[in-house]
């Protein structure tokens, strides 16, 4: 089975009870940071090409690595230990190839395209520490079933309100 992963070390051992939640918080941070257009070192991603941005319907600087959404939604916590977590991908070779293409900047080419690497798979040690510290202090309120329902309905309405029924004729046709 194909696998692509990284290990994120903790500076202090984390108890089993807290480990899963901290692992999830780190994973979510990486996904959220990527959607905000920042790489593993918190630098802005290389811009999209004009053609790709046009196809996606965004500006060239609006890089969030979110087209089908598969690359970010399939990023998982693969294992945890008291001193580290392993996150990454396990399974689909095609997906892992796509992820590698982004990280290395190859995008299906044999060699990386200069300046096009978008390495999102990682996190700065300082950021890990901040998340662990804040998480251990944070009192995360549990949401009730009704509150989850309300959030889900609002989020669903947002999607439905934004569907693009593309009936315009493209100018190049």
């Amino acid at each position, binding site marked *: 089975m194909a696998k692509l992963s990284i290990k994120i070390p903790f500076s202090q051992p984390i108890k089993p009870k807290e480990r899963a939640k901290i692992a999830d918080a780190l994973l*979510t941070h990486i996904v959220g940071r990527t959607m905000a257009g920042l790489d593993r070192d918190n630098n802005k991603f290389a811009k999209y090409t004009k053609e790709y941005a046009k196809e996606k319907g965004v500006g060239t600087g609006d890089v969030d690595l979110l087209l*089908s*959404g598969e690359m970010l*939604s399939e990023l998982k916590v693969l294992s945890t230990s008291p001193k580290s977590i392993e996150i990454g991908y396990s399974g689909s070779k095609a997906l892992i190839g796509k992820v590698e293409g982004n990280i290395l900047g190859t995008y299906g080419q044999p060699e990386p395209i200069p300046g096009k690497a978008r390495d999102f798979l990682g996190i700065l040690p300082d950021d890990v520490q901040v998340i662990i510290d804040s998480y251990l202090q944070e009192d995360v309120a549990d949401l009730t079933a009704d509150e989850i329902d309300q*959030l889900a309905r609002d989020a*669903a309405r*947002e999607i*439905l309100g934004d569907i*693009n029924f593309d009936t315009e004729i493209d100018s190049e*046709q």
Partner: protein
Amino acid sequence: MSNKLKDLSNRLKVKIKLAQVKAARALAETIPEVIRIRTQQEGDGVNGQLKALESSTKKYRKRYKANLSSDTDPDRSNLTATGQLLNSIKGKNIGSKVVIEPGKSKRKGELSGGKSRLTNKEVNKYVDENGREFLRLNKQETEEATNLAKDIIAEELRSVIK
């Protein structure tokens, strides 16, 4: 909305966004089929029954009956002459945004726009502008799609909010 919900952490926002992407992917698959069935089987556009065919159109379709799709007949207004327009409708998601569009490829065969070889997208624009708007969701379909998306998102959130 309660203060608790207003103070949602970024963590939850990311979870919601990912759940929206999953829901968008499902809607992109479902919506074209909903539109296809409503239009072809019920003969309904977005605003109810599709406008009846002109008598000249009916005559033309009778003449070319052998080329008509088996999903229609010469007198029936269901945006199906060859079936290419409705079958070409595709959905895709771009993140949490859903895009539904008719195919861009040129149509084939008789009853497909003649020598001009129109694309399905061009035919869609024509029927849309001529009172047979179908490539949207009606009120009930919107409600059903919202419920589908809501269920997917709620299920995702329940699985990640521990």
